[in-house]
């Protein structure tokens, strides 16, 4: 009787998670079916058949020629550099949230928060048109500088590859910092008031409270977010780089996702090669994940997978 009950319960509990299993299967595992295109000489409108199977041809194609290999390495360099910069500055939204929280004048605090959160809802295409109007060769900045006689020729902010990684990080931060800070603001509200009160009684200054209470309390949140970012290290998205790319900065702005997109969609396009490269991305991501898990085990004594 008892075992029957347990069985029924386990079925019922299985049904609870079934919708999620189905969702994951459809949206995370089923798309992997598309990987077979990397092993075929697929060209629309012809369907893939046994005859079109070419094995690892497209993978070896990547390393078949030193110039092409260098090209893929260039793209990887850009991807690592830009993700690396984001990772390196990942504390920025946290500090921003901490200082935002310190603003005593409530209306002003709300104002700052709204203004910094809003850009998150603007699409990259619009961000670029803002950039074009402000920093373009006849944009606002150049017009003012030339009218004042500071410069004779307009400065090509958008048409140069100088500091492009850092500039991209600045745009990304402008768009995302406010939004990313929300998570930390929530964590800060969760801090026990009593601790802060006690610290105040003991005569702690505001900086000391921040340093000894606020930041340690939200560090776990920070680590979770860093871990999540690490898993997405290679997927820094393509929209931003797609809108900002031009012939002058492409060498430094083309990241892996954009590269995959460009191969599949320019001219006749080559879907198999594009699929093969995007598969490599998954492989590298798994390596990164396992790697960071090992590091986590080493440092914290426990992994997260």
């Amino acid at each position: 009787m008892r075992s029957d009950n347990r069985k029924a319960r386990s079925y019922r509990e299985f049904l609870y998670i079934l919708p999620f299993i189905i969702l994951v299967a459809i949206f995370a595992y089923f798309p992997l079916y598309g990987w077979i295109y990397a092993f075929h000489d697929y060209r629309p409108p012809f369907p893939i058949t046994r005859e079109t199977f070419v094995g690892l041809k497209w993978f070896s194609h990547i390393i078949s020629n030193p110039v092409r290999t260098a090209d893929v390495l260039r793209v990887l360099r850009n991807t690592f550099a830009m993700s690396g910069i984001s990772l390196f500055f990942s504390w920025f939204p946290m500090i921003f949230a901490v200082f935002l929280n310190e603003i005593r004048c409530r209306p002003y605090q709300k104002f700052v928060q709204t203004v910094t959160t809003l850009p998150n809802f603007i699409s990259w295409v619009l961000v670029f048109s803002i950039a074009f109007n402000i920093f373009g060769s006849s944009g606002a900045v150049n017009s003012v500088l030339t009218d004042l006689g500071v410069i004779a020729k307009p400065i090509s902010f958008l048409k140069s590859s100088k500091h492009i990684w850092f500039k991209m990080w600045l745009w990304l931060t402008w768009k995302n910092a406010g939004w990313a800070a929300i998570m930390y603001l929530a964590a800060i509200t969760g801090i026990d008031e009593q601790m802060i009160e006690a610290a105040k009684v003991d005569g702690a200054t505001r900086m000391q409270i921040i340093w000894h209470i606020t930041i340690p309390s939200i560090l776990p949140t920070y680590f979770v977010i860093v871990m999540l970012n690490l898993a997405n290290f290679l997927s820094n998205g393509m929209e931003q780089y797609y809108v900002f790319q031009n012939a002058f900065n492409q060498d430094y702005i083309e990241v892996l996702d954009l590269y995959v997109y460009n191969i599949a969609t320019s001219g006749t396009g080559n879907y198999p090669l594009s699929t093969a490269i995007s598969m490599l991305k998954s492989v590298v991501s798994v390596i990164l994940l396992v790697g960071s898990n090992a590091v986590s085990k080493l440092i914290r004594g426990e992994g997260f997978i």
Partner: protein
Amino acid sequence: MKRLLSILLVCAMVLSMGLFSALAEEAPLTIDIYDAAANYHGVQSGWFAKVVKDRFNLELNIIAPQVAGNELYATRAEEGNLGDIVIVDKKDFSDLLQAGLVRDISDKLPECENIMRFKDQIDVYNKGLTGQEGVYYGIPSEMTDTSPVSLTDDVIYSSPMLRWDLYTQIGRPKLETLDDLLDALAKIHEIHPTNDAGDPAYPFTLWADWDGNDNMIGIANVVQLTTWYGEKIKQSAILKPDNTFSEIYNRDNAYYKITKFLNKANQMGLVDPESGEQDWNSVMNKLSTGRADLMWYSWEVGFWNSVDRLNDGTAFIFVPVGDQLYYADADRYYGSDRMFGIGSKVEGEKYDRIMEFLDWYASPEGCTFQHAGIEGLNYTVGADGKFVPYKDNALMDNLPVPEEYGGGGYNDGNNAINQWIASSICVNPLTGERYAQKFWQSYKDMTMTDMKKEWQETFDAEDSVDYMKKNNQLLASPSVDFTPEPDTNDIASLRVDVNKQLCQFTWQLIFAEDDDEFEMLWDKMVEQMDGFGYKDLYAFDCANYQAEVDAKVAVAESAAE
């Protein structure tokens, strides 16, 4: 309970809608048009929809890969049904036949008398496709009723065009070389640094978003200008005036010459600094607000020239440069680069109605709607039965159409298929004149302005083509039926890589600081392109286009006899 109720309600609604539409008298039949030419995705609306519905009770659902993404081609082909009518690039059509996505139309096509006025061209194409006589699959688009070697237009696709008033103000200097053109443009820039609104104007304003398109690698603005020296880019190869191929990066070729020309222009401060970061839409805006002093596409003048500007002499017009040889395509007798076909899933009554529609599409009435517009809006009919231009801003200003066409804006309701079977230079049997307005006598009379007369006196010719012919500066390339081999995946990825290098370097070359940097970059570009395997791509393209060259030579020879 609530949810159950709402589901029931939705079901009831769907059912009743189905019933109503079944009861309504003959609901229109929707046909899917997979259309590589369309710039509009969705069901055709407005006046053209009404014209088609009134005649055939059809609704046109346009599927546009240019709008909704090229991935549509792959996914719809995978499903086995591209559309009821398919309009694709010529190079894809034989693939569609092999993949079983288009149907045999040999039974119905011979009955379509309007389409069969182009029997010669249709026969040649289909014989090339299947190797059999009398078997039809595809209908070429924009065929003409002239001949493969005639040149009906009085302007060619690309030539240098200046604003007549500015050219007059600098004393109408005679131009012999590109350097003379640069000097003239520098003087024009001096007297015309801004437009009337005070925004900066430049002789050159370039855009990057068309690069690598239209079967040519390289940047569109350079590629187009190579035709000024009789050189035509065929993918990665340059076809020289003597019908031989040469590498695109060879320093003896026009691609180098034009890149150098633009670099020199930039060193002289004649290139808009926004070039390379702006897109075509921004350039279009500059053209129509007078912020560009040089135009090179024949249709570009449409953004500036108007009857008023032709009258006051501020319009753009061809100004010859002595050492140039202008390449022009002859009338497209065998049609343009796109094909019409019928999807393989189309059967029975639907098939009959689609063929009926297509035949009307090539009929005088259909062509008049496509090429001349609506009577009482775009034109009126004179006493002699010939057309007279009426509101020539109907398209530009989206004027409301007459009530009998259902109202709405003219441009909004314009034919979204955007591809024709009969070209606009065909003769309209109803009037005896060509379909396109620019050939009507009434239009010619209207535009014979002082400016045009001055131009004729200055250059001692009727029009630009007449000038080029008189001075042996025209290289007309005959129309042939030719379909390039589609790229294999290896070639496709090679093309992407090589094109990317060429485009990237060309932009940097145009903005190079001095000649030393220019030469250094050019060497680096050649090295990179070769590194990716340019030679293989070049060999593939030469082999591919040799057949076209041979056919053109044959047509030219037989015409000369």
